[in-house]
């Protein structure tokens, strides 16, 4: 473990710089039109899904992005994968800026970077056999490869994810959810990627199957030296799988630190509340921190700290000024005025 940490310390595979994503709500002129105080005005509303997110993913690590629904974690994954265009900021992969590249230029990137989605029922084409589905990316990315080599590659990958290669002529509906997710992982692995973006890959699966798929992903990480950007809402999975964790709230980074540091010593009030809300198996008495109110909409973002409206430690500064992530003595980055000033309650 130690070696990997040292080795990766210098090597950044992915870097997000001040990444922004807005989704315009009112696209046409008539939608923008408002009638206010006897006058017609135009007004543009947008969902601010990702706000000024900067982070680095080191080679060989599993960076987990956690947060509740609507916090922008899936949007981050889609931005990195190039499925969405950022509204601002930069994405660098292996030292090259990729967010401004054309689809054609991104082709070679796609081979290095693969994505696994939440729902294996939706991510596999129901009209393609497993063989066809798995062969397609290999052929696409290696046009010179011979037929028999492609077949051999597919068989090898199927074997490695624990799906019998003799089942290759079957269709996705003939497989269970867990097997389908294995096949989706196999499809990502067929082109020998170095970086995997996994968006809630085990959330749709049952507990006993979750363990199977998570083990598979850990094995692939060790054997192939993969780097993961792992999007999830499940904190127990993060604790097990992640080397570092980013906590997002309303599209902004609250806290970024090593997994062990985050779970042993959470600092941001939101991280604390989030951790306390996870139902514990062995503990009888829940001591969960009750948050005031609910997550505000990302349409009209507050000017100050996005969490201020629900935070017990919020003061005037929190309401007016947005905190920036600041390094803590133990290496964690925390965006919170209360932590900075040491006036956190509880």
């Amino acid at each position, binding site marked *: *473990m130690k070696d990997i940490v040292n080795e990766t310390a210098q090597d950044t595979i992915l870097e997000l710089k001040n990444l922004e994503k807005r989704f315009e709500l009112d696209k046409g002129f008539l939608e923008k039109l408002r009638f206010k105080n006897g006058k017609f005005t135009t007004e543009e509303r947008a969902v601010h899904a990702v706000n000024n997110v900067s982070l680095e993913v080191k080679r060989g690590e599993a960076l987990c992005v956690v947060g*509740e*629904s609507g916090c922008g974690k899936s949007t981050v994954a889609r931005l990195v994968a190039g499925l969405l265009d950022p509204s601002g900021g930069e994405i660098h992969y292996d030292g090259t800026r990729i967010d401004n590249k054309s689809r054609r230029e991104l082709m070679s990137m796609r081979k290095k970077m693969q994505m696994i989605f939440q729902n294996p029922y939706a991510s596999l084409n129901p009209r393609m056999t497993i063989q066809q589905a798995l062969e397609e990316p290999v052929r696409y990315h290696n046009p010179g490869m011979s037929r028999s080599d492609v077949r051999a590659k597919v068989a090898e990958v199927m074997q490695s994810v624990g799906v019998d290669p003799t089942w290759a002529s079957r269709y996705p509906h003939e497989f*269970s959810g*867990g*097997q389908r997710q294995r096949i989706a992982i196999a499809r990502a692995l067929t082109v020998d990627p170095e970086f995997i973006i996994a968006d809630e890959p085990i959330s749709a699966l*049952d*507990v*006993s*199957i*979750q*363990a*199977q798929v*998570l*083990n598979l992903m*850990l*094995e692939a990480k060790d054997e192939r030296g993969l780097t993961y950007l792992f999007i999830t*809402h499940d*904190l*127990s*999975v993060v*604790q*097990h*799988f992640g080397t570092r964790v980013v906590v997002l709230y309303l599209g902004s980074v609250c806290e970024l630190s090593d*997994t*062990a540091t985050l779970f042993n010593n959470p600092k941001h009030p939101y991280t604390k*509340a*989030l951790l*306390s*809300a*996870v*139902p*514990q*198996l*062995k*503990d*009888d008495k*829940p001591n*969960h921190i*009750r*948050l005031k109110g*609910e*997550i505000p909409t990302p349409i009209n973002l507050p000017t100050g700290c996005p969490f201020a409206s629900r935070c017990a430690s919020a003061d005037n500064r929190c309401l007016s000024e947005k905190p920036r992530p600041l390094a803590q003595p133990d290496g964690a980055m925390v965006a919170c005025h209360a932590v900075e000033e040491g006036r956190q309650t509880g």
Partner: protein
Amino acid sequence: MSLLSVRDLTVKFAMRDQTVTALDQISFDLGKGERLGIVGESGAGKSITGFALMNLLSRPGFIDSGSINFEGREIAGLSDKEMRPIRGNRMAMIFQDPMVTLNPVLTIGQQMVETLQAHRKLSKADAEQISIMKLREVYIPSPEDRLGQYPHELSGGMRQRIVIAMALLLEPELIIADEPTTALDVTIQADIMELLLELCTSNMVGLILITHDLGVVSQMTERTLVMYAGRIIEAGKTREIINDPQHPYTQGLINALPQQTLPGQRLKQIPGNMPGLTAIPDGCPFAPRCQYAIDNCRRTRPETVSYANVEVACHEVNRLHNTVLEDQSA
């Protein structure tokens, strides 16, 4: 006397060419004000149990045999009309997705008043007063204003609170909650669970909590049933089951959780999948995935025995149980 007593309940589904058994001789009791968890993976029969208790099974599903005794009355096989004074009134159900439960074209107030007036002779004003009171109980801010709002105007957590308020409107003796927080975020889930726990204990309402989340069961319930392939394979005090599970499946389920393994280590997975209802093996349904399975497990169905304070259906445990009995008599 127990509030609910289920004996050998068997539910079948008539398919085109065969009849499959979705619930296989389920028996359990629930005392007044008791909280019971039903856990298992998808397809284990948890939700079917809830539907069968509410008499909400629709074709092709039907109760094949067994009895459901609720407040001293046999309710299995009652007609819809006979069921009406019980359902919603004496026992209420909370479903997973509040957006599906609530009618999108009626205001919250209309839906609550309608429910009240269907069961009680009340004026609209009185029904609204009761509704406001119930909304206040589930910590809905400014409940008077909510009555005029439509479900889409409220957040997911707020909607589920309203569903809980509606379930409590007629002061039922039993609430069946089927994955009530699965669609919600973890901080909202914690709030809703705390609320449900508080309301059930203060009003002495019985709760059947159907979930796949062992953590939730552990915090919410006094007793737990573990289901697998339509059968109860382990039942007992929640604490006993979580701390010292006896059935290999329950053990596997708990051991498979990431928090049971050191970070970065291989998780202890259960091999294979739960069998589909059309292909439940003879003998113990868990035998094909069980590391302790012997020939007898594949041939004969295990009887339920009491062992280490829980009821468990497993040959292996049965064997241990008999050895213990022999030791005691010797």
